[in-house]
């Protein structure tokens, strides 16, 4: 607990209220709830998720499908995109499709890739980190070397190479981003486990005859969970950025699926001729999403770790 929190607790005791025991989880949750920027970021993410889920509803309201081309009304005299209007809220793209509907469908791709890729790397990172830290010896050095090798090739370079071999698809992007980014989490979890495994409660569990699996997953896992959650919340925006970069390079999510990176790639050939909206809306959507996740991730980290709040962040200690 930090100074102000302790002061609040003392004030509560002086007022004759009961002092209750609170778990680190409860404390972190309460800190998050009183963090204004965390609430704004979480609200923004909620809106993005709702818009993504409701994309078909908006497609029905506007009467424009995501892949539907509007030859004539969706094009200007020279066949280029038309600006935002009552019919096309965000204007149209270079193929005469409704940009608003496509940006909404793009949110689905980004969120799905961000969440699933993070899930993969969290699973891999936790299991490898627990195994390396607790089992030690050969397993530890083997995992350390695998991580060294993965880190030796720049992530984007492996990703575009692998996408080149197997052909671009959304599932490949999820697997690539998920598998390539477990390395840091594995190192963090390993470090924690090495420190924790000498504690008395682990020795007690071992003395009672618990096997390595039981110790790793029921004794150690709950104690590294806070670190895992902090890291996962910071990994989601990174996964979204990597996916957008891959799609921008043409090796991510293929057409006709709407994807922000791919839209920005196409817009880069048009925006300089006055079609600013084509670049602006997908870019803004991408930036708002990554910004909201990063702000929330920072707040989650600060809520679990008061030291990082002092070193990195905004809150007075």
């Amino acid at each position, binding site marked *: 607990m930090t100074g102000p929190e302790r002061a609040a607790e003392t004030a509560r005791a002086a007022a004759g209220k009961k002092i209750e025991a609170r778990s680190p989880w409860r404390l972190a949750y309460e800190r998050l709830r009183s963090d204004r920027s965390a609430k704004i970021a979480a609200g923004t993410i909620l809106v993005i998720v709702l818009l993504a889920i409701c994309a078909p509803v908006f497609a029905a309201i506007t009467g424009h499908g995501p892949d539907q081309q509007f030859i004539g009304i969706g094009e200007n005299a020279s066949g280029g995109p038309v600006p935002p209007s009552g019919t096309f809220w965000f204007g149209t793209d270079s193929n005469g499709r409704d940009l608003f509907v496509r940006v909404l469908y793009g949110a689905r791709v980004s969120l799905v890739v961000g969440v699933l890729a993070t899930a993969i790397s969290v699973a891999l990172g936790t299991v490898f980190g627990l195994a390396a830290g607790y089992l030690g010896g050969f397993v530890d050095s083997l995992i350390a070397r695998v991580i060294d090798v993965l880190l030796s090739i720049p992530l984007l370079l492996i990703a575009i190479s692998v996408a080149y071999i197997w052909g671009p698809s959304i599932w490949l992007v999820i697997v690539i981003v998920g598998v390539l980014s477990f390395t840091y989490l594995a190192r963090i979890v390993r470090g924690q486990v090495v420190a924790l495994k000498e504690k008395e409660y682990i020795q007690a569990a071992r003395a009672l005859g618990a096997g390595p699996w039981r110790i790793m997953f029921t004794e150690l896992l709950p104690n590294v969970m806070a670190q895992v959650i902090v890291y996962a919340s910071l990994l989601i925006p990174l996964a979204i950025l990597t996916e957008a970069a891959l799609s921008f390079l043409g090796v991510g999510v293929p057409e006709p699926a709407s994807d922000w990176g791919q839209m920005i790639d196409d817009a880069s050939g048009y925006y300089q001729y006055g079609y600013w909206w084509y670049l602006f809306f997908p870019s803004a959507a991408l930036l708002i999403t990554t910004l909201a996740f990063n702000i929330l991730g920072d707040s989650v980290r600060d809520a679990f770790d008061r030291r990082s709040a002092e*070193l990195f962040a905004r809150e007075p200690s």
Partner: protein
Amino acid sequence: MTRFLLRRLAQAFGVLWAASAAVFLIFFAGPGPGQVARTFAGRLGTAARVAQVKHDFHLDQPLYLQYTHWAWNVLHGDLGYDYYKGEPVISVIAQAAPATISLVLGAAVLWICYGIFSGVVSAVKPRSLLDRGFTSAALFFYSMPAFVLGLSLIWLFAYKLSPVTTFFPFHGYVPLTVDPFGWFEHLILPWLTLALVTSATYTRLTRASMLDVIGEDYIRTARAKGMPERRVIMVHALRPSLTPVITQAGLDIGTALGGVIIIETVFGIPGLGWTVVQAINQQDLPVIVGIVVLAAAFVVLVNVLVDIGYALLDPRVRLH
């Protein structure tokens, strides 16, 4: 120190060997020998030509022999032949490298200077207006996709403001040896883009490690004996707080080949990143493999250098 050096080098060679095996498996064993032979033979390759290529490149032999032949060639500086351009891969890489080196080194100077400056200013007056400004900017640029920033800068400087004055060019590259001013002018926007998206980490890192150091006892001692605050910060606090920053700079320069792919594509700079994207669009396998192997070797080399530098600075590292 000698023992540490030997152990570290042996480990580096191990990683390099494993990385080369991984690259080989991804590019050669993954698609299978038939597909690789067809890629090498080019789009118009006849069945006889494909068979010939398959034999010449030892693709008809077992996998471990294929790898041995390939690794042997790579070790002798032979990264293969680029059939698309009609020259050895090594000379394709040599032509593209100067542009990438100019881009990365120039941007690195910018991002390290800005990152350390903003981090120190933030740490000296935490929660001041400047600190909030720098920390928010760091968060903003950390969330910013490099291609969105690059395209926005082009839009602003090359199109939006161009009727007022003609700002710098935004596409292409002029070698330093041909025209130093043109080189500088063409690289301003790419440097700025790469530096801004990378500097965020440095602002945060410098701020955090500086705040950590300022809490140390010897800083209090320095202040207590009446040393001017400016000297306390610049001499006693800054130096120890730079070690994590230097490590990060080594890692970032090592993996820069990943980051420049986007920047070079946006600004049309014919460096290594641009070359690899071209190679992927043209299905030019030897060039892709060559650049990936080179990138891995470079990262491993930089990591060894960072570790040696660290061991020189801090003797405790040598024991681990």
